[in-house]
């Protein structure tokens, strides 16, 4: 069996010179590789089969402007950058971009990128271990099977479920794909256990480490009192939609089945807010590793990759997400499924709807929350998705289709497998 692929992420934060002209030039250079607004970009990220997603965002409002370049890849970051810099045309194009950033040295692209990488922050991956290449190949497998069913609809009409499945198996063998289908990567350990076991295990740990738990609860109580004072003094402005900014980000949206979102917010003043946002991100990160690791984040079933990064020596919280479907649905899912997680993170940032005890209120104030989220968005300048028409649900179903194709299935499992088509 093939080994699972290790994924990595990078977040390159490069300061941009203060003058208007170089920023304008930068925007112009970025257009050259943007596959969203430019259907025939000069160079295509397709050249990098290890790349799942990447984006460039120029953050200009509030504080020193910078260019953010983030990506999600299979394998390690350094060889990816070396490979980029080794390709002459890519090197030239990236140099045209980074020449407008501070302290760029010609010919030292990989070094520059590595030196400015602030890492993945709190990083969410829908399916750890699934490479971009396998995801695309599994989608192709589905298309081939669908085409076979369409072309042979009449012949298959009178067959039983096991017979239809056998016909599909024969077709896949004929296409020479059986060996690849059977060689599905093993999932990493944390994805294989029954996640219903998580609750009892966590409880047992908390009880087993009772003294530490009590200490934490005590400290938490003290912090909560202070937090409630802060929450009581938070003010709330009337809802205001920044229409220019909204149109700027919406302009790029919904051109495929997936969208990209970059949000920049400022953590409220005071040590407690700084502590709480970091503590919440730690908890979210842990919950993701241990529990929300099967294609949903806190019940939101549409996120491929996301990350929260607190920029070094600043109070800026930057969020990047690659998600399926409309922004309106994404934000609705946030409110309906994950308001606790959202509140505990963004409740510590300026302009967020008022929270109570950190996790209550907040996002439940739907209109104010959506206005906050829209207003915090930055226009994405470049965005690439390696599989822009494959949603999380599609991707999971495609994997199940492959997994069940040559497996031993009961009658019920066979019906279930055929329903994947």
């Amino acid at each position, binding site marked *: 069996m093939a080994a699972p692929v290790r994924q990595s992420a990078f977040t390159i934060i490069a300061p941009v010179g203060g003058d208007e002209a170089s920023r304008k030039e930068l925007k112009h250079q970025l257009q050259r590789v943007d596959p969203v607004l430019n259907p025939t970009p000069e160079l295509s990220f397709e050249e990098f089969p290890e790349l799942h997603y990447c984006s460039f965002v120029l953050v200009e409002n509030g504080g020193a402007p910078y260019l953010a370049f983030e990506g999600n890849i299979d394998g390690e970051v350094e060889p990816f950058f070396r490979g980029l810099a080794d390709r002459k045309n890519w090197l030239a194009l990236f140099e045209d971009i980074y020449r407008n950033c501070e302290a760029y040295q010609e010919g030292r692209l990989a070094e520059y990128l590595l030196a400015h990488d602030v890492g993945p922050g709190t990083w969410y991956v829908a399916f750890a271990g699934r490479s971009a290449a396998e995801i695309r190949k599994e989608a192709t497998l589905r298309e081939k099977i669908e085409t076979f069913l369409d072309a042979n*609809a009449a012949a298959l009409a009178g067959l039983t479920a096991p017979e239809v499945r056998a016909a599909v198996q024969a077709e896949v063998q004929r296409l020479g794909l059986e060996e690849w289908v059977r060689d599905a990567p093993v999932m990493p350990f944390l994805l294989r256990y029954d996640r219903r076991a998580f609750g009892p295990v966590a409880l047992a740990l908390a009880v087993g480490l009772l003294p530490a738990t009590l200490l934490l609860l005590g400290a938490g109580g003290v912090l909560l009192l202070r937090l409630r004072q802060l929450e009581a003094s938070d003010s709330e402005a009337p809802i205001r939609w920044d*229409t220019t900014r*909204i149109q700027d980000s919406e302009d790029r949206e*919904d051109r495929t089945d997936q969208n990209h979102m970059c949000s920049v917010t400022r953590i409220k003043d005071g040590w407690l807010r700084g502590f709480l946002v970091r503590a919440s991100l730690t908890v979210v990160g842990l919950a993701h590793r241990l529990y929300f690791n099967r294609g949903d984040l806190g019940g939101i079933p549409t996120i491929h990759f996301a990350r929260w990064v607190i920029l070094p020596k600043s109070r800026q919280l930057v969020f990047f997400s690659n998600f*399926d479907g409309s922004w*309106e649905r994404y934000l609705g899912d946030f409110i309906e499924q994950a308001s606790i997680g959202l509140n505990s993170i963004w409740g510590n940032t300026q302009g967020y709807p008022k929270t109570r005890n950190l996790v209550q209120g907040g996002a439940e104030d739907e209109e104010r929350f959506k206005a906050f989220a829209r207003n915090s968005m930055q226009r994405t300048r470049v965005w690439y998705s390696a599989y822009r028409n494959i949603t999380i649900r599609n991707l999971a*179903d495609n994997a199940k289709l492959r997994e069940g194709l040559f497996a031993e299935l009961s009658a019920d499992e066979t*019906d279930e497998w055929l329903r994947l088509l």
Partner: protein
Amino acid sequence: MTPYPRSEVQGLLLSAYRRWRHAADLFFALREPQGAAAALRWIAELVPRVTFGDETRSTAKLNVAITASGLKALGATEEALASFSPAFLEGMHSQRRSRILGDDDDADRPSGWLWGQGDGERRVDLALLLFHRTEEGLQRLAEEQKQAAARAGLRLVHELSLQTLPETRAEMHEPFGFADGLSQPYFDGIKGADELSEEAYRLHHVEVGEFVLGYKNGYGEVTTVPWLLPPDTADSFGLNGSYLVLRQLQQDVAGFWDHYRRQAGSDDPLAVERLAAKAVGRWRNGCPVAAFPDAPGPDQVEDLRENDFSFRAHDPHGQSCPLGAHIRRANPRDSFEGDRDVILHQINNHRLLRRGRAYGPRIEDAQRFEGDSQERGLVFSCLNGNIERQFEFVQHTWCNNESFHGLHQEVDPLIGPQPAEGGPYSIQAWPARRRLAGITRFVKVRGGAYFFLPSRTGLVQLAQIGEA
């Protein structure tokens, strides 16, 4: 119990005026900028003629709705306008909205519409929606209103006369021949809301704020209310108002049935209807395919129970009513996986109160119609408290979504935008699904706009905007 004053909300919010069988829509543009004063006087004179929710007896019904450009032309300040919904302000015609609504192919582009929004000649600032018990009465009312509007300097951009509604509910069909407008949400104060069975309540009851602004919505929050006069000087303009979406959808009836005859590979009327019903999700008489998979049930659409069906109970895998059928996309009910009450609560944050009527010459038997040169279709009309979360969500996130319900690369077979060569449509079945190819859209957008439907107080305030 009515949580809002009935004398404040326009009648259209509480009734589809079914017994006012004759109807017409008049679309006007204001002449700028010198026309504002005369138009404001006209609005002041119009208020006593407007139908509000407490009026049930009159032979005529008149409702009035205004677009963002209309508010602006009448003198709303930039600051006041910013209190309205971003979608309303941007308008249905923008490139971005065309993209999400599926209006961005050559046939449907707003630049070719008969009426709409934007800068051109065809821009609509204001709509009068007229309903009457008799045809002569409607003609008289329309003539009267057109003259009064003309005297006030308004220009008639477009006029739509709607099909006379049949006497009984069972005879009401959209032009393709399917019973329409069957599934409606209920909120407190609307007729029938206090007679819902437990199950109907779960499926169809929503909070008032989903349709009437200024009350609690599905999230338990009081909705924002847009204003015209500075908020502390008066009740807000938008209180007891609603957003109204109108779209003129031309339907090629002969093309539609011809297409499904070819797709069915048969002239047998039942086989053809069965396939078309698989795309719509209902038989022509309104019976849901999820509950009646092989043949239409009895003509009982009057019976509310017919609309209390559950996808989960009848048809969890789409083997009767396909997962991508029009009515399953437009209102998925309990179709998605998860706790049923939670799912229904989420789905019901996206409900539309529909008020559409057909236009153009009526066809007796749509399935056998051979075509003529006349234009006909549906004036889709819906009310909602939040255009983005309700109307646009249904159209974009459900109907036009290529991976709705786990499907792959297909859209709503009835109203979704299809590629030139036609698109696929999956029909789930045992042991394996069928997939149709070359599904074409026989609906074409001819006009449309986002309006605001103000309350009585709102209209009075609007008329006084010049004095502020």
